[in-house]
């Protein structure tokens, strides 16, 4: 469903993604880990063209992401994205945040969009905050709204870039629970996260990146018990002893 084929990316002279080959199938949950600056976010953001690739091919459902003829807005409808810092719209209520794209992009009526928004708010466990503004919510609640906002477009793919890194420890669980439920329902997910519990429980594959390369791909049990790469081992010992 998502296919990276010999993808390279440069920021000027800086080679940020090196020969990336990665195939993510429908319904798969792929967790991407690696040291800071290794290119995890960049790789994720290429999938919905928040970043453009310099070389190689990247397709989603067989459609070339980089192709000038590709209607990027149409492609993006099908790919939800959740950011580390939520990026909710501060001037809109929770409900309005979730209803905006379904109404403006999919052309849903207000009533229809509202019904769907409420359904997803219930799903992420904060139906009672529908009319609050983002600034009135805790970080964990904001992130759950952001997930609901992504889901309301009924996408086939959800991308998560360190969705719990900006949260206080006691709020991480509530967000991970929502993501786990989503994974169990068969959503195709690409998740940049260092949350090992999450990865062990729901990931089909771990992708380890370092200095712009994918160094290792393995199933979680294997990866955490016995990483093949020395760098992966080093990296794991560092996050474990933290």
């Amino acid at each position, binding site marked *: 469903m998502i296919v990276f084929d010999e993808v390279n990316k440069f920021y000027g002279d800086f080679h940020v993604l090196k020969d990336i080959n990665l195939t993510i199938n429908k319904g798969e949950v792929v967790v991407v880990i690696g040291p800071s600056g290794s290119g995890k976010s960049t790789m994720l953001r290429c999938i*919905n063209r*928040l970043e453009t690739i310099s070389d190689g091919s990247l397709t989603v459902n067989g459609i070339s992401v980089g192709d000038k003829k590709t209607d990027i*807005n*149409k492609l*993006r*409808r099908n*790919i*939800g*994205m959740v*950011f580390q*810092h939520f*990026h*909710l*719209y*501060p*001037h809109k209520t929770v409900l309005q945040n979730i209803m*905006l*794209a379904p109404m*403006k*992009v999919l052309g849903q009526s207000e009533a229809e969009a509202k019904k769907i928004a409420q359904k997803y708010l219930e799903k992420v466990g904060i139906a009672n905050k529908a009319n609050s*503004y983002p*600034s009135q919510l805790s970080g964990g609640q904001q992130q759950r709204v*952001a997930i609901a*906002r*992504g889901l309301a*477009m009924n996408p086939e793919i959800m991308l998560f870039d360190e969705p719990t890194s900006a949260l206080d420890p006691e709020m991480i669980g509530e967000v991970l629970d929502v993501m786990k439920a989503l994974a169990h329902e068969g959503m195709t997910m690409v998740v940049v996260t260092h949350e090992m519990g999450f990865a062990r429980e729901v990931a089909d594959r771990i992708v380890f990146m370092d200095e712009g390369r994918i160094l290792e791909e393995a199933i979680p049990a294997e990866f955490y018990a016995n990483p093949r790469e020395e760098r992966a081992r080093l990296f794991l010992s560092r996050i474990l002893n933290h």
Partner: protein
Amino acid sequence: MLDFSILTDHLDMYLEGFKITITASLIALVASLVIGILIAVIRIVPFKPLNALGAAYVEFIRNIPLLIIVFFFFLGLRLDGLMAGTIALSIYTSSFIAEAIRAGILSVPKGQMEAARSSGLSYVQTMRLIILPQAFKIVIPPLGNQFINLVKNSSILSVVAGLDLMYQGDLISSRTFVVFDVYIFVAIFYLLLTIPLSLGVGYLEKRLAKSN
């Protein structure tokens, strides 16, 4: 003590000038806002040649004296004083407004654009629904200052016989040979416009701050 007979004897002239000043200011306010938004957008759209064009406009206009722009329309294009003054005022103010709006747009966090675009909204939709409403809040105070400056700058109409408040003051003064009192009343009329404007901006600022 102020000689109030100056005011009462020439009330019709004062009011006529007041009316012209209000009219010219209102027209220039709307026009400069429209041009200013347009230039701000031209400066930030992802298209370099347009950006350069917008930058050139702003740098050129805001770095020459207002009076020269007035003369361009009055002496150069031979428009009447009121018309030349109002157009010049609109153009001059628009360059400052463009800068204020651009700064406001740039101060909206990058993540807002990314979140909106990644949900499938187009660039234009994102600007209209997400970025501009947030920029608007940030831009209110500097915009208010520009509008206050605009009202005061409208006195430049008097130089080209623009029939405005200042021009009427000049007339009254040359007729009565009184200077001080005449212009005190002129100043009071200006304050009648600028103080409510200033209070209004302060009020808006507070109300918008609350909704966030």
